[in-house]
């Protein structure tokens, strides 16, 4: 009997902690449209999936070496990567260069790009609506939802930064929020 009471108390305490943590971190369930999943290679040949970044705020930038306006944003994104990477943020640059890595690698070195660059393909172009213009930049929240899409250089550096900070403040990377149904299962009496 005492074991049962103890079990219930532990369960309720755990549930309480989870609920409190969630509230404290301004937890929410993303109502944003999910960003299409992809699987692309980086310069070292490693496969990168968007799902690998779940729990992080991602700035997904579609660009190309021949795109002049893309060159305006790349230094901003390098700064963001440096400033926010320890707060659960990552920049992914998807190059749409038809010539592949032979065109991309020298450019990346020349620009000293400090974030992960991937080689795009037709599938990702289609999945993200055709990408009629470059740059096209998406901010993706920690739950994989598209928080905003920016076609062309439509936003200044500070506006981008504000949007990133806002998304980073929404939830904390160190304390992922337990979904409500998980809390419900933990809180169910006699579940132990």
């Amino acid at each position, binding site marked *: 009997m005492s074991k049962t009471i103890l079990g219930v108390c532990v369960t309720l305490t755990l549930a309480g902690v989870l609920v409190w943590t969630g509230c404290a971190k301004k937890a929410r369930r993303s109502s944003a449209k999910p960003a299409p999943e992809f699987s692309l290679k980086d310069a070292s040949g490693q496969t990168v999936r968007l799902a690998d970044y779940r729990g992080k705020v991602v700035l997904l930038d579609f660009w190309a070496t021949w795109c002049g306006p893309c060159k305006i944003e790349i230094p901003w994104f390098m700064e963001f990567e440096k400033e926010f990477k320890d707060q659960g943020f990552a920049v992914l640059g998807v190059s749409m260069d038809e010539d592949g890595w032979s065109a991309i690698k020298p*450019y990346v070195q020349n620009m000293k790009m400090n974030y992960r660059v991937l080689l795009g393909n037709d599938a990702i172009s289609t999945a993200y609506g055709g990408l009629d213009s470059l740059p096209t930049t998406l901010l993706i929240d920690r739950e994989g939802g598209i928080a905003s899409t920016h076609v062309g250089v439509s936003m200044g550096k500070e506006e981008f930064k504000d949007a990133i900070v806002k998304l980073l403040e929404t939830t904390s990377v160190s304390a992922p929020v337990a979904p409500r149904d998980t809390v419900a299962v933990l809180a169910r009496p006699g579940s132990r």
Partner: protein
Amino acid sequence: MLAQAPGSAVLSIAPATKLTIQRGATADFAVKAELQPGFHVNSNMPGDDYLIPIRLTWNKDPLEAEQVTYPKPQMEKLSFSPNPISVYTGSFEIGTRFKAPANAMPGMAFMNGKLRYQACNNKECLPPRTVDVRVTLDIQ
């Protein structure tokens, strides 16, 4: 790799007029292009290895394209580049000097080519495009 929505082309090419050429002789032809306001295409020598130059190429027959002549570009200072970029804006013409072989078959024929270009404005770039160019020939 990149899609381009139908009707999103910012460069239009005027319908070609018929080119009359004598066998063994040369004749000049101009591809007339017009860009939407605000857009530019890189010239044939943009001055930056990363930029895609405009390029007009022709099939090998029935005529020989002896020389393709690009117009004088404008040097524009754009926000993304420390140096002026060599571009075309508005209306421009790319000339070609064709030579008809002495043994060319007389009569009506077509000369087919391709124009490759890549357009941008100050804020965005459109994917590179390659469009077909066709000239109706009267070989005499």
